[in-house]
């Protein structure tokens, strides 16, 4: 069921989106002619077996990969055929990413990890720190600001990763198996956190997962198989 508060203008609009990888003499299809609309403010759960194309779709939406064919518009920006500089700006301003393995930089402490996207985007450092401290407070990690990132527990690391994903006020958060390396208690806490950000900050969330932990908070559930959606792209 779509969120009643979601606006009509889609934040993700994919038409005939295709990604084919060369593999040896042949090819592998990651995403095959996918059509998808996601409205602003939605919390979409993307499911599917391993190799179904979930990560490929997320990489395309995050402009980390380029489609082989089709059209893709995210947060009002057409991503196909854009120069690298535009894609970097898009990643800075429009999306935040959360990974299964947290991907915190071990060389930085907690607050530095969170501030990194803001600094890379050329934002004011003091402003970035203030925002990071706010986020830490909200995430219950204010005492951990100067801890080395590799000294945190898995649940804490993922919360820091979420804070990093939202520091630049993105419209869309893409989360790739964010609970995959966590126990069920920490997994639930992470899902609850993403749901809070979705509710309170009106951030659209697209969460790829195998688990059922997010089923209760999702506004829509999609299933991907062999690179194509098997459930209707709109409505549930």
């Amino acid at each position: 069921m779509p969120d009643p508060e979601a606006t009509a203008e889609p934040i993700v609009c994919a038409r005939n989106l295709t990604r084919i990888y060369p593999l040896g003499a042949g090819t592998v299809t990651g995403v095959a002619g996918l059509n998808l609309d996601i409205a602003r403010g939605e919390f979409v759960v993307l499911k599917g077996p391993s190799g179904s194309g979930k990560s490929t779709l997320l990489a395309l939406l995050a402009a980390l990969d380029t489609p082989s064919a089709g059209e893709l518009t995210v947060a009002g920006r057409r991503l196909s055929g854009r120069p690298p500089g535009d894609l970097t700006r898009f990643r800075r301003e429009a999306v935040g990413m959360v990974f299964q393995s947290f991907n915190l930089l071990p060389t930085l402490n907690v607050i530095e990890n969170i501030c990194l996207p803001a600094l890379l985007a050329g934002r004011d450092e003091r402003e970035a720190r203030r925002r990071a401290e706010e986020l830490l407070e909200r995430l219950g990690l204010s005492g951990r600001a100067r801890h080395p990132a590799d000294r945190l527990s898995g649940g804490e690391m993922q919360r820091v990763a979420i804070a990093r994903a939202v520091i630049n006020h993105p419209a869309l958060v893409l989360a790739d198996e964010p609970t995959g390396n966590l126990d069920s208690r920490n997994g639930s806490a992470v899902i609850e956190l993403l749901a809070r950000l979705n509710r309170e900050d009106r951030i659209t969330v697209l969460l790829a997962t195998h688990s059922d932990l997010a089923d209760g908070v999702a506004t829509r559930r999609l299933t991907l198989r062999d690179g194509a959606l098997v459930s209707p792209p709109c409505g549930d």
Partner: protein
Amino acid sequence: MRRLISFFRLFAAFSLRHAARHGGRTVAVVLGIALGAAVFTSVRLAVHASIASFTRSMDFFAGNADRVVVRPGGLLPEETLALFYTHPAVRDYSVVSTTYVRRQGEGTEPFLLIGIDPLLDRTFRSWRIEGEGTKAIEAWLDLLREPYTILLTAPLARELEVDAGGGLALEHTRRTARFRVVGLLEPSGLALVEGGRVGIVDIATFQELTGLHGGVDRIDLKFRRGVTPSEIEALARELPEDLQLGTPSAARESGTAMIRAYQLNLSVLSFASLFVGMFLVYSLVALNVAARRRELAVLRALGAAPHTLFRLFLAEGALLGGLGWILALPIGSVLVRYLLEAVSRTITTLFVRVRVEELVLSPAELSVSFAVTLGTSLIAAWQPAREAMRVSPREAMDMMTPEERRRKSARSAALLALGCLAACAVLLPLPPAGGVPLGGYLAVLLLFLGFALLSPFLLERLASGLEGRLSRIAGPPAFLAGRAVRQGAVRTAVSVGALITAVALFTALVIMVYSFRRTVETWVRQTVSGDLFVTAKMGQVNRFRFPLPEEIVTELPRLAAGFDLVESRRWPLQRGDFPYEFEAMGMETFFRHGDFLWLEGDPEALRPRIAAGEGVLVSEVFAARTGQRTGDRFQAQIEGSLVDLPILAVVRDYRTDGGIVFYSHRHFRERYHDPRWSGVRFFFREPPADPEGELARLRRAIVAAWGDRLDLIGGRELREAVLRIFDETFAVTTVLLLIALAVAALGIATTLTVLVLERSWQLNTILAVGGSPPQIRAMILWEAAFLVAVGEGAGLACGFLLSGMLIQVINRQSFGWTFLYTVDWASLGLSLPLILAAALAAALPAVRAAFRLPPAALLRQR
């Protein structure tokens, strides 16, 4: 056996496949080792070939005599032979004299002329004449009975374009004479002396040509069977006071002793490239251990014993060393051709005349180079292999390497570094062991190790110190690079250590060579002063043993109106194994135009005393080698006189590697005997309006009077030649240095590339959270800048310390000389930024490697 096969299977699957998968870095390290091994092997082969050529010559020439009789600084009177005719201890005796001659004509190369008694010599030296029995006997008889007949080796005859039966005119100091070639020598025994550039004449012809009537260089003796040492000692006592009984190998031993220090220093310098290569092996094996920690933990969890992991990585080091050595052979075969010529030329210039005709691939030298290369690689792999051994099976479950461990390593490395530097200070002042500055070499090694160990600490300090400032100036890339450098300080330190070593060597040798050159320039300007130098023809090659004819000595001053003349006479002498020269020269006139480079004593007070013949001056090398200092007495037998004089001062002199003793020519004549003149230098009494014209006039007058009986060289020409020889001598050093720097740059390239590939998930995370490709490239370049800044900064500091050690300790202990410490700021200022740029350029492969795979693919792998 089964265990061994299992190990090799595991090695092939675990290590070889990994090496093949990461072919680029494996090839870079193998190339680094290959360059190091090629330099080490070719330098050793080149020096070995020169020494082998010299000792072979000396052995063939020495023959099978039991003892030789010589007269230091002079000729042996032939009457001495009478002592041995009936001596109960002596069975056979023979006379030998040698000199250098050349074919008449411009630009011909001198060759060695050996004068022997063909009858007496048969039992001493082996030499055979080519051809059928009768023809050879005829030639031998002709040599014996006909004056001005000569035997030549076939290659020399070809070079001189003459055949058996033909004639040729040979020039010598005293005269030019026409010889008939009576036969050619078979290529064996005496014919192999000096690479076959040798001719044999009867001793009577020799004396006739050289004017050394009634005198020979030495008498060789063979003793009767069963002669006792006491009988030999008794024979020595029976000889007149000015004669010496020595062993035939003394000249060879003294020659090889002189070359030894040069060989050792060149070997140590050539080892530097291999030492830098050792850092590369350490770097790659350590990076592999770190990057494959989880795989190691899995292997351990599956039952692999710790020593299996240790052997796997040790075998990896051995494989890198072995492949490097194999690749070194073709590289070395090219390099050795250049080095052979350069090394033999330097040995000929500085020590003893050598002529290398062919390069023998000595199995012993090849074995040494293989053992050193393999040993170096094994030592380099030892510590990382031990680290692999300590991986716990539990780590298979861990996510990250704890930060604490890194910090502890950097601190303990810094402590170890201080220990190395302290030990260096203790070892440095130790006296040489058997003429080898062992303490000095060990101190140099510890200095390098100390600075290499200090590099993690320096990297951490630099990165944390500059982090804030650089972040403000250069933004997030510099900040992230600083953090990455701090994190990886211990691991990157190895490549930084390689760069420190190469830069230190570069700096130290630039300073040393410059200091040496500037000192030599000053010495040349002051001591090798003069506007025209005149010696007897071929005086240099014959070591000035043939004085100028009396009529020339009398006439020369008449021709040289307007010039001051400084006459001199040089004698090659020997003290034990140490060869030196005694030079009597016209001190009063010399001090009007030139000076010595005084090392001890007050020049103002000493010049009049030296001119008045109160005592001798000794060179720094003489003082260092003999232990004699100012105030001691110098004693030597020169021709018929026993010279006994006080040493008044020590001066710097760089004429040869041997020492030199100076005394007043006039007072030598007054106190002892007429030393005659072996050369004379002319000084303009007053600076003329047209110096070139005046010199040309003097040259023309001398040539008109005595034709080509004299060798003439202008003062400026001679000084330029001395400096040219100096530069040629150090050309080898420059080549070795550049190779060491290239190997260090390879180290930087390999380390950065491996680090980038290893952290590709981090770089792509940065990209995913908003970093741009230019920011990531800038970050890698900033990382390189940190490594290179520490490498170059610490290398520079290490280099300055090393230069002091080289000049004040290693050179003094190896060669006996020191120089005035002068820093070549211009060369350093020009080359260090170039090294910096080259090392930064070495980061480019790493920058390219960062974007080898699409970010999405790397994130999926993660």
